[in-house]
C-alpha cells in the first residue's frame, strides 16, 4: 500500500513515540470525538461527537472484527444496554493462533493508534475502564504499551475529565500467562477475572453480562486500531478500501516456506493468495505451493488450486476455508502433510482447556493416532480412525477450539489422502527415523501425558 492505515510504522519512523504520533494526526480523532478544550487553550469545553455518532460512523464504515470471526464491530458495540453501568471495554491481544503476529507489530510499533482506538470504543459505549489483555509472552510489547499509556496520561489524553469534559477513562494492560484458549472471548474474561481460562456458556453474551457480569465490548487489537482513522476521516473514506461486504484494509501475516515472511496490510478483496505469496518474496527456492493455511492451524488447509482466491472473508470461505485472523502459513512441496497435520493437532491437544469432553479427549486421541502413524506403526485404517475421531468432535464441543481442532485432520485428509497412504506405506517400518527425535522430545515433555502408543521409551 502507498500509505498504510494500520502499519503506519512502515511509513513513519518512530511513530511509537507520542509526539511523532501526534504530529501525524495522532489523537485527532480522539479530540474530534470527545471535544473539549483545544490543546492551544480555551476555557470552555466545546464541540465533540455524541457517543452514538462515534458508534454510527464505525457501523457505517462496515468495520468487521479482525480477530477471526469478522463480526461487524459497530453492531457489536450497539448490543450493550444503554442504561447499565459500569461498562467495560476489553481488548483481545492474546494473539496465539499459530502464524499470527500482527497485533505484536501493532502494539510494539504503533501503540498509540491502538490506545486511541480503545479510547474511542470506550467513549462510544461510555465505558470508563478498559483492559488490554495481551498474551503473557508479550512481556516486552506490554512494556512499550505501558510506556505509551503513561505518556498519554501525562499529556492529559487519558484519565480524569479528559479535555476538560466530564468524560474520564482508565486503560490498563493485563498479561495472560500462556494459554491459547484465552483468545476465546469468554475464556479471556474468565482469565481477566483471575480464574482458569475456560469459556463460558452463552447466552448471556458479554454485551449484556461480560467482565464482572457487566456489559462488555471485546474487540481484537487490530479491529480497534482501525477506529481512529475511521472516526477522523469518515465511513466513506474507509470504504474506498476493500469490498462492499469486507470494507477496509487488513493485515495479512505470511509465514512458513516463503522468502520474506512478514505482515502485509492490504485492502480486502483486491489481491489473491498467489499475489500475497509473491509479496512475501515467493516460496523458498521457487518450490511449488502444496497447501495454504489462511488462518493458522484453525483454518482448513487449501490446496494449490486455491492460489487465485481473492483475499476477503467471502472469497476464502467460498474456497472452502476461513479468512479468520488472516495468518497465512505457506506449505511447499517439501513439506510432509502428515507431519504438518500432527504438529497442528499437537497444538490443539496442548491448548485444549479440558472443560468439555469431546475436545479434551478428541485432541488427545487424534494425537495418539498421529503419533502411531508418524512413528512408523500406522495402517491405512488409521486414516479412517482419524476421521472418526474428528467427526466425534465436530459440532459437539463447548467452544470453537475443539471445532478448529478438527480442521487440520479433516481438511488434510480430504485434500491429501493419497499422501497419508503413501506416508504409511513408506514409513511402516516401526522406526521412522525422520521424525524420531521430535516424537521422543514431545513424548518426554508430555511424559506425562502417556502418549506412548508404539513409541520406544
Amino acid at each position, binding site marked *: 500500500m502507498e500509505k498504510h492505515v494500520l502499519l503506519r510504522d512502515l511509513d513513519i519512523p518512530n511513530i511509537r513515540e507520542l509526539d511523532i504520533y501526534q504530529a501525524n494526526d495522532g489523537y485527532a480523532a480522539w479530540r474530534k470525538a470527545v471535544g473539549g478544550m483545544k490543546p492551544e487553550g480555551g476555557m470552555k469545553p466545546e464541540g465533540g461527537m455524541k457517543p452514538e455518532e462515534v458508534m454510527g460512523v464505525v457501523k457505517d464504515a462496515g468495520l468487521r472484527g479482525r480477530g477471526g470471526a469478522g463480526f461487524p464491530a459497530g453492531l457489536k458495540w450497539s448490543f450493550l444496554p444503554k442504561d447499565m453501568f459500569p461498562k467495560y471495554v476489553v481488548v483481545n491481544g492474546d*494473539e*496465539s*493462533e*499459530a*502464524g*499470527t*503476529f500482527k*497485533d*505484536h507489530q501493532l502494539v510494539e510499533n504503533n501503540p498509540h493508534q491502538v490506545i486511541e482506538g480503545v479510547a474511542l470504543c470506550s467513549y462510544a459505549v461510555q465505558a470508563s475502564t478498559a483492559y488490554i489483555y495481551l*498474551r*503473557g*509472552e*508479550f*512481556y*516486552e510489547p506490554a512494556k512499550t504499551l505501558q510506556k505509551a499509556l503513561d505518556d498519554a496520561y501525562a499529556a492529559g489524553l487519558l484519565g480524569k475529565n479528559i479535555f476538560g469534559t466530564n468524560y474520564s477513562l482508565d486503560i*490498563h494492560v*493485563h*498479561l*495472560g*500467562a*500462556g*494459554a*491459547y484458549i484465552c483468545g476465546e472471548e469468554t475464556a479471556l474474561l474468565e*482469565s*481477566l*477475572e*483471575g*480464574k*482458569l*481460562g475456560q469459556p463460558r456458556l452463552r447466552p448471556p453474551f458479554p454485551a449484556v453480562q461480560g467482565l*464482572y457480569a457487566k456489559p462488555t465490548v471485546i474487540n481484537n487489537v487490530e479491529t480497534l486500531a482501525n477506529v481512529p482513522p475511521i472516526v477522523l476521516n469518515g465511513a466513506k473514506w474507509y470504504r474506498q478500501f476493500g469490498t462492499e461486504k469486507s470494507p477496509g484494509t487488513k493485515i495479512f*501475516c*505470511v*509465514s*512458513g*516456506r516463503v522468502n520474506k*515472511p*512478514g*505482515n502485509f496490510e492490504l485492502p480486502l478483496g483486491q489481491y489473491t493468495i498467489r499475489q500475497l505469496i509473491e509479496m512475501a518474496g515467493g516460496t523458498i527456492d521457487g518450490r511449488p505451493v502444496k497447501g495454504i493455511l489462511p488462518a*493458522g*492451524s484453525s483454518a482448513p488447509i487449501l490446496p494449490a488450486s486455491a492460489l487465485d482466491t481473492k483475499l476477503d472473508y467471502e472469497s476464502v470461505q467460498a474456497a472452502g476455508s476461513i479468512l479468520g485472523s488472516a*495468518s497465512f*502459513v*505457506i*506449505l511447499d512441496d517439501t*513439506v510432509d502433510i502428515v507431519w*504438518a497435520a500432527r*504438529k*497442528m493437532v499437537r*497444538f490443539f491437544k*496442548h*491448548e485444549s*482447556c479440558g472443560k468439555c469432553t469431546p475436545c479434551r479427549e478428541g485432541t488427545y486421541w487424534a494425537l495418539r493416532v498421529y503419533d502411531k502413524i508418524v512413528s512408523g506403526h500406522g495402517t491405512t485404517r488409521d486414516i479412517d480412525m482419524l476421521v472418526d475421531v474428528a467427526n466425534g468432535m465436530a459440532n459437539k464441543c463447548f467452544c470453537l477450539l475443539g471445532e478448529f481442532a478438527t480442521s487440520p485432520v479433516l481438511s488434510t485428509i480430504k485434500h491429501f489422502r493419497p499422501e497419508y497412504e503413501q506416508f504409511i506405506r513408506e514409513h511402516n517400518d516401526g522406526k521412522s527415523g525422520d521424525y524420531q*527425535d*521430535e516424537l521422543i*522430545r514431545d513424548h*518426554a*515433555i508430555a511424559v506425562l501425558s502417556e502418549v506412548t502408543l508404539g513409541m520406544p521409551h
Partner: protein
Amino acid sequence: MTLKDKRSADIEIILSKYPTKRSAVMPLLYLAQEEYGYCSDEAIREVADLTALDPTEVKSVVGFYTMFFEEKTGQYVIEVCDDLPCALKGADAFVHHCERKLGVRAGQTTPDGKFTLRTVMCIAACDRAPVAQVNREYRYSLTPDGFDKMVDELKGTV
C-alpha cells in the same frame, strides 16, 4: 521478608487496577515468580492471602497457565518455539541443536542450574523464525551459531 514487604508499591498498583482482588492473581503470581524464581508453596500462600483466595484456587491458576512454574527453574528459561510455522523454518533441528549445546533435553535444567530449556507453542513471531524467548525476552531469527554465542554470553564465559 514476604512479598508484601519487598514489593508493597507494586502490589498496591496491581490491586488498584481491578474492582476485585481476584483479578490481581495473575499479575501477583508474576511478581512472586520474579521474587522466588517459581511459584513455590510459600509464594502461592502469599498470593492467596493478598487476593483473599484459598491457596488451592491460586494453585489451580498456576497449574492451568504454562508461564507459571511449579518447580524451580534455571536462572535463564530458554523457550524455543517448535510449532508449525517455526518448524517450517527448521525449528525441530534447531531445538535439537539447543539440546546438544546445553547437554539437556527440552524440559530439563542444566546441572549447574543456569539454563532451563523448554519448547513452546507459537509465540507470535513467525516472521522471524526460528524464535525463542529467554526469560520472556524475544530472541529472533536464531541460528545455531547465534544460539551458542548467546548461551556463552549468558554463562559469562565470553
